């Protein structure tokens, strides 16, 4: 049953892990006990302050849950102001480029499926670019470009296929 210890934050485990393991080992496994430990683990994640300020500070996955909640709430990993600025600028620039491209292509090709697909894909472009920039920020420029290109192309091809199919119905 000691695997259940892994459910607790690292900081908590460092402080109580050994003795908790000893108590855990001394008890008969039951559904009630599993639920009790689960409840305790959730409580330990939700109330990290119960360890007190003088407890051993350990960086790591102790704040994993809170960090994940934080990331979900703001929609991405923690970014430095510079990284955030770059991601925002890329999103805005891509939105402008795609808007101009759409207007030009519409003037030339009117409502061709390829143009329609571009229009619908462009809705997601800034978001995809922002996300890719954020998540790939630690990768090389080449990897970023390849991943971005692949993601955007896949999106465009999908929309194009939908419009080509739609035009045949």
């Amino acid at each position: 049953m000691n695997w259940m210890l892994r459910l607790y934050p690292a900081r908590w485990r460092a402080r109580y892990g050994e003795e908790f393991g000893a108590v855990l080992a001394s008890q008969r496994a039951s559904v009630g006990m599993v639920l009790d430990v689960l409840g305790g683990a959730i409580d330990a994640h939700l109330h990290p302050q119960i360890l007190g300020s003088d407890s051993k500070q350990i960086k790591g996955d102790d704040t994993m849950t809170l960090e994940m909640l934080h990331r979900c709430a703001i929609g991405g990993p923690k970014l430095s102001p510079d990284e955030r600025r770059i991601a925002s600028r890329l999103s805005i620039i891509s939105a402008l480029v795609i808007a101009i491209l759409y207007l030009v292509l519409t003037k030339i090709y009117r409502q061709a499926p390829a143009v329609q697909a571009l229009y619908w894909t462009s809705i997601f472009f800034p978001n995809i670019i922002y996300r890719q920039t954020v998540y790939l920020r630690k990768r090389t420029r080449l990897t970023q470009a390849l991943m971005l290109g692949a993601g955007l192309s896949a999106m465009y091809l999908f929309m194009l296929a939908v419009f080509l199919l739609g035009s045949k119905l």
Partner: protein
Amino acid sequence: MMRKTEDDAELADFGRFSEPALLILISLAEEPRHGYSMTEDIETIAGVRLGPGTLYGALARLEARGLIEPLKSEDRRNPYRLTALGESALRARLNSMMAVARTGQRRLASA
């Protein structure tokens, strides 16, 4: 609701852990004990067996508040003892509970 003195209030915001915390303090009032020994003692005195999650949720809160403190130990079963603050919080809580119990019994007797 029971009236709370300043010391009694130490246990007031423990939420679902307030009863286990009280039982732990009562258990440690006799002598320092480690987790497993507390579980056994509490089962004997109150007929409740605290699960490890509940036990350590309450222990961590009590320790953070300075009501109990760990003692040095050779093995992995760390014993705890009541601090002076813990003792006075326990005393206040028990007094408050006794006052309520006395009132209840008096009212029952006169009913």
